[in-house]
């Protein structure tokens, strides 16, 4: 035999020619760009939905249940029997609430990936590393959009009317999605640090539940005790709701209100984005 081939290659079994052909054809293509890699991770997320469509339930049925429950169960009590008026007040709030609740799924997904070997595979590839986080977040942007469409459609059926018109609604949803995308980086960090889906869920709920309830989503803060009203007025979720309500109702928003929400979104991204990527690089 040749002196070139190590002993391990020639011992015993014959060489498998299908395998050899596959190896010969395995030339390294040009490196994928960051956008392309993110799209491939988005592709993965979409395939997962294809295989377990039940994942769609939380962006379709959940908004419907929230909407029906709050309109008819609490709406009368909260709005002196006028459920229609309450719907008008409450829909933009519950829209924000629903979309922000969906953000926490990205953390659960990442922690479940990190527990398995697939994360090691991704991390050992020569690719732009944030794509493994951004891809799933882009998939989530679809979910936010879908949940928003569902919510608004059900709302219309129940009698909700967006005085802000199509433009107002589209702008409101855009602002909401941008904020949700930035907030998601908090959950990606939690997902990578906690390493257990249950723990991630617990932490996310613990943060999100009080923040969404202690806001102007459900009731007018003027009805609250002073200390709570003070908290509600600095709660970023209230700020998002104010902007979404202003845009959808046609009442409009001030530059200050919009700027505050965008600044808060940017702060979340700039704080938790790098922390997430640092954890992603150095995790065990």
């Amino acid at each position, binding site marked *: 035999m040749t002196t070139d081939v190590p002993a*391990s290659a020639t011992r*015993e079994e014959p060489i*498998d020619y299908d395998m050899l*052909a*596959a*190896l010969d054809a395995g030339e390294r293509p040009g490196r*994928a760009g960051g956008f392309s890699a993110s799209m491939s991770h988005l592709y993965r997320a979409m395939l997962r939905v294809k295989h377990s469509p039940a994942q769609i339930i939380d962006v379709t049925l959940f908004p419907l249940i929230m909407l029906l429950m709050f309109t008819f169960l609490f709406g009368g009590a909260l709005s002196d029997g006028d459920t229609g008026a309450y719907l008008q007040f409450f829909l933009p709030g519950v829209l924000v609430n629903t979309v922000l609740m969906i953000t926490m799924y990205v953390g659960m997904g990442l922690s479940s990936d990190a527990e398995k*070997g697939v994360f090691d595979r991704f991390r050992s590839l*020569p690719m732009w590393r944030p794509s493994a986080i951004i891809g799933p977040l882009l998939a989530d942007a679809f979910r936010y959009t879908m949940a928003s469409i569902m919510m608004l459609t059900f709302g219309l059926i129940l009698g909700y009317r967006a005085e802000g018109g199509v433009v107002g609604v589209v702008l409101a949803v855009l602002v909401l999605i941008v904020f949700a995308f930035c907030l998601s980086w908090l959950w990606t960090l939690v997902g990578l640090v906690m390493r257990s889906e249950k723990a991630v869920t617990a932490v996310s709920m613990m943060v999100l539940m009080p923040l969404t309830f202690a806001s102007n989503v459900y009731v007018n803060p003027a009805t609250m005790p002073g200390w709570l009203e003070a908290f509600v007025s600095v709660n970023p979720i209230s700020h998002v709701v104010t902007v979404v309500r202003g845009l959808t109702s046609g009442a409009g928003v001030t530059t200050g209100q919009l700027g505050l929400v965008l600044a808060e979104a940017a702060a979340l991204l700039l704080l938790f984005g790098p922390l997430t990527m640092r954890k992603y690089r150095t995790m065990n």
Partner: protein
Amino acid sequence: MRTDAGKRPGDGRQLAIEARGLVKTFGETRALDGLDLTVPAGGVYGVLGPNGAGKTTALRILATLLPPDSGSARVLGHDVSADADAVRGKISLTGQFTSVDEELTGRENLILLGRLLGYRHTDAKLRAGQLLKALGLTDAGDRQAKHYSGGMRRRLDIAAGIVVTPSVMFLDEPTTGLDPRSRNQVWNIVRTLVARGTTVVLTTQYLDEADQLADRIAVIDHGRVIAEGTPGALKASVGSGTLRIRVQDPAQRFDAVRVLTEALDVEVQLESDPCALTARVDDSERSVHALGELMRAGMTPAEFALGQPSLDEVFLALTGHPAESAPDDEAAA
């Protein structure tokens, strides 16, 4: 740099891996404690050791998944810390645990990896088909990976590792938990990879596997290399194992012990089977000689076997302690 250890005799090829003084601790556990590794390019390099010896940690550092606390490592000349991306462009890692998305089909997994590596979607699809065929997974290609058998899953893992043919492939215990048939398939794949020019670094708990596949072996214990060399040299340093003999008639047993003790110059043990004898032997030549003596004395054995030393025996010989599992760093890593 120990150049004598770094190059295979008679060729001046570059080193695939050069690791010096790697240290990694997880809390109280010192997973790597000054590990040195020199792997020549080409062939199979076996990293042998019990659970918790630090094998997985070493591989994860070399595959850029884990930064070392101290020490340095180069893969094909690229530093794993300073030049991690260049290293990732040359290697692939197939871990102990399934490293594919089990919710996706085999084909989808391979298409995904192809796209992540830079293929366009249609090329990635073609490539996936090619790899499924090469690994005998064409029929299973459109089933979700979670429904695969252990052997199929491992083959899909390997396929995922060769979407782009790597220069260095790390295989972490590639046959642990596989049935003998699947194990042989994996061994064949490894041999083919090597024939095509890939350097394969594999960890194993089985001396048998290292012996079958590896051109060189490093034995690791408590995060350090305690022996390094070709399988032959390693085994010679340990003794070739156990000679087991069954005489035809229990009455011959004590005579047989006398003959064997003389011929082998080691202690011969009586087993609970009234016809069976065992002896730890240094080399096979001597065992053959002893068998000859036995036959000349008119006691042709009914059965005899020369077993390879187990990993336990290797450890006992090299370290003076058995290969017990240390607190599990492999799981933590």
